[in-house]
């Protein structure tokens, strides 16, 4: 925690809360689920970017991309498994 600059974790939480408010107004279950993933992952992005000077805003959106990428990968694997089992 710094003396002058705001607490990084609290700044990240504020960006998350902003995102949460926007998503709530959109009433999209897809986005709500994605947000859950982001919350689970965001502290690890924080840990990984500790020595870089990354804007908390960018950190949250980077985590969102990470969550999306994992989701894509999950479906890609499922699809490939399905294709393979059909071929057998």
């Amino acid at each position, binding site marked *: 925690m710094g003396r002058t600059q*705001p607490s990084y974790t609290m700044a990240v939480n504020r960006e998350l809360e902003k995102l949460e408010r926007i998503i709530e107004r959109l009433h999209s279950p897809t986005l709500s689920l994605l947000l859950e993933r982001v919350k689970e992952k965001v502290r690890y992005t924080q840990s990984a970017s500790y020595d870089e000077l990354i804007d908390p*805003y960018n950190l949250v959106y980077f985590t969102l991309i990470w969550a999306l990428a994992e989701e894509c990968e999950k479906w890609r694997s499922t699809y490939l498994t399905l294709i393979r089992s059909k071929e057998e």
Partner: protein
Amino acid sequence: MLTTGFPFLDEIIKRDDIVEFFSTDYDLLRIFYHRVIAISAPVYVVVVSERGGLDPYLIGRFQNVFDNHAEVYIRRAFKAEDVPITIDSMGDNDLIVIDPYHHRKNYTKIVSSLRKVRSRKFLFSFMDREREGSIFGSHTSHSMIKLVKSARGFKFVIAKSVTSREIEIPSYLLDLYSKVSDDGGLLKYMV
């Protein structure tokens, strides 16, 4: 060069040595001075506070908006006794001072340091100057500008100025975060 990026306002205050922006709206003033720091770079800044006062990431965002990544030099003054000597240490550079009277004491020495060198200064005070009165008196070329939230955004209320009489300049909240066009609209006919 010290500038607010609101052309109309900058025009009014351009001949003042010391300009004091004050507000009781903490968030409004805070966002405003982060903007002013970014747009005025290269610039020297004194932050008076034991904790907090500056969000470097917010300055960074403004630097992107205005495409100005020039240097921002900072010194922090944590206690009242540090303020005058920290201001002195900035020499004859134009200066931004965040919350100079934060500790509500040592006024005489602080004011004396602010007046000592003939450079331009922007002060940002979290207080109600109208109630607490001006510290400078009429000898210093000095403007006092109040920021107030309004229905549609906020406004600059020019409370004291050598060049202009008391006027109000309304603005949109969104303007705070972006470049403001040179065309002042109807206002340019008022002064």
